[in-house]
């Protein structure tokens, strides 16, 4: 296909959309002169180029249409519905011819003589309204309604969402504010109305510019670093100047690649209309935030997922009018596309007020198709269940789609969104509708990232995954990270945060000094959080993401590489990849311990078992079988309340009675000796790592539940308990050696029974 035809196709495709819109405007408002002028200009330019490139049929059709339009423009005819229909027919036939040209270069086999005849008949008709004789010499007579020639707004360039695949190296015309145009007095010039304010630029050139700016940013960073060793103020001034200019240049070059999201959306009204007609549904389609801008590559990446979601919403989400009426809704369904900026990202919502997703049926289906285990599914929240539709294998089954409303290809939607660093999430209320929410980064090429060091190398962590930075010093550094059966965890504001060491994940030696402070970078991967322990944390800077070569493609923990200010290369960590390697993310599961633990019995009976080791407030070392532990919690003093002689805490919708192990053991001992129970005199051991907070072991076995207050959690170990001796005080089962130290095994039942005498019977 030669260049002229290619250009012609591209331009005409853009113009046709505008033509449709203009004709519809005219149908509503026949006196709309701007629209008329725009239609005239477009058809004129189609005619001109068609003749130039030898498309005879197209030229003939455009010519007849143009003749009719010139009479309309002269005011000799009034625009009416019939004319609109015929002119819309012209637009359709132009499309038809263009398609044929794209296909095989010919004009196709269409016969347009009837159309041309119709156009000519209309032109010859005396006109529905009293035709005013127009002076032939003046093609644009000033009409009463427009005392001076009206400026013409050029058709806003629309993106070629067209099927011209062969020309997609040419970028759609960049949208610039439409400039007012002088009245279209001459019909001779081949009017390219946008050429004054915008240029067509090859995307490869923009990409090249982007790369160069990336290099410039790096050079700037290097110079700035170099500048810190210089005393010369003049040099500093120049460096500052360079810094500002580079930043501005970078911003503007990035802007050249920005496009309004409306460019993807503008085909949706048609998609929705056609699909709703085909499904026999009534859908009111609304869009909000079309002007929200995104990088071109991202716009392209979200085009398919968005189309898919919009189709899904009409096809499965919104019900047929009778069903809607029956459930008390208006016959017309509502579909809303909404885009807006939030925190350096773009949020896109696709919301419908349709039938929603039934979590129970998703659960059934998920279990039946072995996507999740039955017990797992039983524990999942509605939200988790609904988000199961994103799992591959789940979505491809027909059955799911027709009941759940959403399915086919949802995993593909998620994969595509995640590929560009976005996230997607569904919220649905049965009978009320479904909202799919996407979070998309603005651009991919240059991102803010945190630099860290581990094992002597620097690594960059994209800022988007970053939640917070924690630094443990002194005592905390030594004991802050605890071991839960070998899995390191950190208590962050009362919750256990799984922790992974970057050096372990990467299989490299750490340079960390054992006593030094511990740096934890808290990261978000999918919907999970985890802490990454690194040797040192540096600052945040803008980095230019470069892809890794194929020799390194298979390593999931790296997202790419970048060149740092000092010219050396640093690897960019892929947080999701890290999380998978650390087993933080691997399917859906709860955090509770008890549900995973094997059936537990009294410690003595089991040979090798998992034990929770803890210190009592008076410094004793005790153990209970891990199987008896539901959870480990940490409560601040402020939430502890009193009920009778004991402390209680509101916990997960119930009242959890707290038994202080130290206290209860003393109580038991004094009961046996016939003494009256001693007044509580809590003394916390001075060495408790979390000052003021109560470390509580929630017991799994009793009803109502109780929590044991301990001094501190020491460790979780799996050990064969061999050396043991008889207990020497009540409340203790036996004494054994665990981890080389004498440890008392708490008789949980004895403590609870003793306490139960005083506890109110469960209601």
């Amino acid at each position: 296909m030669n260049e002229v035809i290619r250009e012609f196709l591209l331009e005409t495709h853009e113009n046709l959309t505008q033509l449709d819109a203009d004709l519809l405007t005219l149908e509503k408002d026949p006196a709309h002169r701007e629209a008329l002028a725009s239609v005239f200009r477009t058809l004129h330019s189609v005619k001109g180029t068609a003749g130039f490139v030898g498309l005879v049929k197209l030229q003939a059709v455009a010519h007849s249409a143009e003749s009719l339009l010139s009479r309309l423009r002269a005011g000799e005819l009034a625009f009416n519905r019939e004319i609109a229909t015929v002119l819309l027919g012209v637009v359709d036939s132009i499309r038809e011819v263009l398609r044929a040209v794209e296909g095989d270069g010919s004009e196709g086999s269409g016969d347009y003589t009837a159309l041309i005849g119709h156009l000519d008949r209309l032109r010859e008709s005396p006109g529905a309204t009293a035709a005013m004789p127009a002076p032939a010499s003046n093609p644009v007579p000033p009409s009463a309604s427009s005392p001076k020639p009206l400026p013409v707004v050029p058709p806003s360039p629309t993106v070629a969402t067209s099927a011209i695949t062969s020309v997609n190296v040419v970028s759609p015309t960049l949208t610039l504010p439409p400039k007012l145009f002088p009245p279209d007095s001459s019909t001779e010039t081949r009017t390219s109305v946008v050429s004054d304010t915008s240029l067509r630029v090859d995307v490869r050139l923009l990409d090249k510019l982007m790369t160069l700016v990336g290099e410039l940013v790096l050079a700037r960073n290097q110079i700035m670093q170099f500048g810190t060793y210089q005393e010369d103020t003049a040099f500093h001034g120049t460096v500052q100047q360079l810094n500002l200019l580079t930043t501005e240049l970078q911003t503007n070059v990035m802007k050249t690649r920005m496009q309004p999201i409306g460019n993807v959306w503008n085909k949706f009204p048609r998609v929705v209309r056609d699909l709703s007609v085909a499904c026999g549904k009534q859908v009111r389609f609304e869009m909000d935030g079309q002007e929200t801008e995104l990088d071109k590559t991202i716009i392209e990446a979200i085009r398919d997922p968005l189309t898919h979601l919009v189709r899904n919403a009409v096809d499965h989400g919104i019900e047929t009018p009778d069903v809607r009426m029956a459930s008390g809704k208006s016959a017309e369904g509502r579909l809303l596309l909404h885009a807006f900026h939030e925190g350096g990202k773009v949020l896109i919502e696709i919301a419908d007020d349709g039938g929603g997703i039934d979590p129970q049926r998703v659960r059934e289906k998920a279990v039946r198709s072995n996507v999740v285990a039955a017990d797992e599914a039983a524990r999942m929240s509605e939200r988790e269940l609904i988000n199961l539709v994103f799992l591959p294998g789940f979505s491809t089954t027909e059955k799911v789609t027709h009941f759940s409303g959403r399915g086919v290809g949802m995993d593909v939607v998620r994969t595509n969104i995640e590929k560009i660093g976005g996230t997607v999430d569904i919220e649905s209320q049965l009978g009320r509708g479904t909202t799919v929410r996407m979070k998309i980064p603005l651009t991919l090429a240059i991102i803010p990232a945190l630099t860290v060091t581990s094992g002597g190398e620097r690594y960059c962590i994209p800022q988007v995954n970053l939640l917070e930075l924690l630094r443990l010093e002194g005592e905390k550094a030594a004991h802050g990270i605890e071991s839960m059966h070998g899995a390191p965890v950190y208590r962050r504001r009362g919750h256990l945060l799984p922790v992974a060491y970057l050096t372990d994940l990467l299989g490299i030696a750490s340079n960390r000094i054992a006593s030094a402070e511990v740096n934890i970078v808290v990261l978000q991967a999918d919907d999970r959080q985890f802490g990454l322990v690194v040797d040192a944390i540096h600052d945040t800077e803008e980095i230019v993401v470069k892809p890794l070569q194929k020799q390194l493609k298979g390593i999931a923990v790296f997202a790419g590489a970048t060149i740092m200010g000092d010219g050396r290369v640093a690897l960019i960590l892929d947080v999701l990849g890290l999380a998978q390697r650390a087993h933080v993310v691997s399917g859906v599961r709860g955090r509770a311990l008890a549900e995973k633990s094997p059936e537990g019995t009294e410690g003595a009976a089991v040979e090798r078992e998992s034990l929770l080791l803890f210190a009592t407030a008076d410094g004793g070392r005790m153990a209970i079988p891990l199987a008896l532990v539901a959870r480990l919690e940490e409560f601040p003093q402020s939430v502890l309340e009193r009920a009778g002689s004991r402390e209680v805490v509101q916990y997960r919708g119930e009242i959890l009675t707290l038994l202080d192990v130290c206290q209860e053991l003393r109580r038991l001992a004094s009961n046996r000796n016939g003494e009256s129970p001693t007044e509580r005199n809590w003394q916390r051991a001075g060495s408790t790592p979390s000052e003021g907070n109560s470390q509580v072991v929630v017991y799994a076995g009793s009803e109502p539940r109780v929590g044991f207050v301990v001094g501190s959690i020491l460790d979780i170990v799996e050990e064969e308990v061999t050396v043991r001796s008889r207990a020497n005080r009540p409340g203790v089962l036996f004494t054994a050696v665990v981890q080389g130290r004498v440890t008392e095994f708490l008789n949980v039942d004895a403590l609870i029974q003793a306490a139960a005498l005083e506890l109110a019977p469960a209601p």
Partner: protein
Amino acid sequence: MADEHQYCTFYLRDLYFGLDVLKVQEIISYQEMTRVPLASPVVRGLINLRGQIVTALDLRRRLELPDRSPDQLPVNIVVQTDDGAVSLLVDEIGDVLSVSEGDFERPPETLQGIARELILGAYKLDGRLLLILDAGRTVNLANH
């Protein structure tokens, strides 16, 4: 001349190798590298080549030869591949040699293992053999 070929030559231990000179972009001295954890041991690291990030492969390891001593700094031969530039770390650089096609011979059956995959053949020079590497296969670690 049509039957003459130019090769960029280099040494690995006592072996004499050649790479098609048209594939070689440049020779640079040893650079500080950024290690890539979890990568194949052949990958020694990443270097910054004028703003371009280039993967450096150790040709000794690629050919399953023993590592050079730590004090012996290798040299980078940067070769062009479909996937951008890749650096090959070698012991020492030789001359660019023009050799005549008539002296080329394909490897015998007795050449086994990884060498058979990567060595296209040898030119019989005076007193020694110039082993010709397949640049494309050498940088492809897919089956490694």
